[in-house]
């Protein structure tokens, strides 16, 4: 195959749009939820997949506008050679008929020096945290159930120096695809229905949360 063709096909359909729904589950219902997801999802016959990631959030600031551009560096603590650089756009709520939130989403696997590299580009680390949880998939839908941990010593991700931020687990249902594929939203809505009333996955307006917290 012609190398330029390969580059073409890689560039042709960038999967950079994420449709997603969010919710949370309390610790005591986690097992029920995991069992239900095991039954609903494709990887039922395997051992459930769990993950432990270290995420560093980098900001680049600008004199003209105070809101920074945010890049996130994620690093698996289990497979330590896996690093990725992510950009998450602002979530669009859209009109009522749209079943999910939509944001632009770029997840780019990189080599391990990504933190130093974007440091040289002018990014500064804002905060970091550890996230642990489980991962399921059904078709192209991805479901993560994750718990967030605060790091008490900068850069130290060992278990005795981290503590939970909230006893509940964040549940995210998402599909990453090319833009304009609105049809996936209905599938996701149907899937979310099946998790009720255990977890309510819904469109949470991020602007309200950000306003309320800052």
């Amino acid at each position: 195959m012609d190398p330029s063709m390969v580059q073409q096909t890689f560039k042709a359909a960038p999967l950079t749009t994420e449709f997603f729904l969010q919710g949370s589950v309390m610790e005591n219902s986690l097992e029920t939820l995991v069992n239900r997801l095991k039954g609903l999802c494709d990887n039922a016959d395997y051992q459930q997949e769990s993950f432990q990631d270290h995420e560093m959030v980098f900001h680049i600031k600008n004199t003209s506008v105070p809101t920074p551009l945010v890049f996130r560096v994620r690093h698996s603590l289990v497979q330590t050679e896996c690093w990725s650089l992510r950009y998450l756009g602002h979530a669009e709520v859209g009109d009522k008929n749209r079943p999910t939130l939509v944001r632009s989403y770029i997840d780019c696997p990189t080599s391990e020096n990504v933190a130093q590299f974007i440091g040289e580009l002018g990014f500064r680390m804002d905060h970091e945290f550890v996230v642990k949880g489980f991962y399921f998939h059904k078709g192209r839908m991805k479901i993560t159930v994750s718990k967030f941990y605060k790091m008490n010593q900068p850069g130290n991700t060992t278990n005795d120096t981290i503590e939970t931020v909230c006893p509940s687990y964040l549940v995210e249902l998402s599909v990453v695809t090319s833009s304009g594929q609105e049809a996936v939203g209905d599938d996701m809505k149907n899937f979310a229905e099946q998790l009720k009333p255990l977890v309510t996955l819904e469109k949470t307006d991020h602007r309200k949360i950000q306003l309320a917290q800052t």
Partner: protein
Amino acid sequence: MQKEEKQLEHTLESLIQRVQDIKNSIANLLVKLENEYNILQWPSVLDNFALLSGQLNTLGKLLRNEKVPPLRNSILLPIALSGDRDPELEKVTERRVIAFNADVVPHYLRTKPEPEVEERLQPVLNRASSLTPEAAQKQINAMNKMTSNIVDIIKSHQETMEKEANQKSSLSQTSSQADTNTLLSAVLTGKGFKSSGMRRTDMAQQQSNMQAQQQAAQQKQQGNAHGKVQSSIKTNIKQGSSTHPYQRN
């Protein structure tokens, strides 16, 4: 005499009607079994059987009806046999019987079961008559006992299942909007992740310890009484969200 004849005719008509009904429902069932055997649901098969048994019942009732003259007393006589095709008969029997000839008449006008059926029936009847009434009573009792045992077991299972279902519905609080908001704000803005100084970390640790204790206590409560769960969680969340006031900018 006239009246009796009329009654007989009437009875025969209604009999034919009922039998026609039964025939139709059997035909329906057969068509379903043949054509939809791969998507056929068991409940719908049962429905068909229920319909059949109902129709058989009404047929039985009709025969037992007082107004119906004793059909046993009437005689059916084949008047003429003929080897030729009889279009009228063909129409009436839906092309099953083409001619009223010596081949088919013995089968259709038979009043006793087939010899093979009789053969198989005979030993059963013999066994039944040889059994003494006491022994029969004994067996019936044993049978009843077993059945009632099984019914008991099923009932107790049903009860426990219902109980569990009730418990589940009472455990409705499995997620909380407040926690969702806390988590989302942490992910989106980093709130709760930015540590600032040792003292505050200590405080945070203490608070988290407290929180954990509360959590444990609350879980105990849950074990005891389900009704109270909701309120305790709410208070816990309030405390949880108020534990980090210093982190607001």
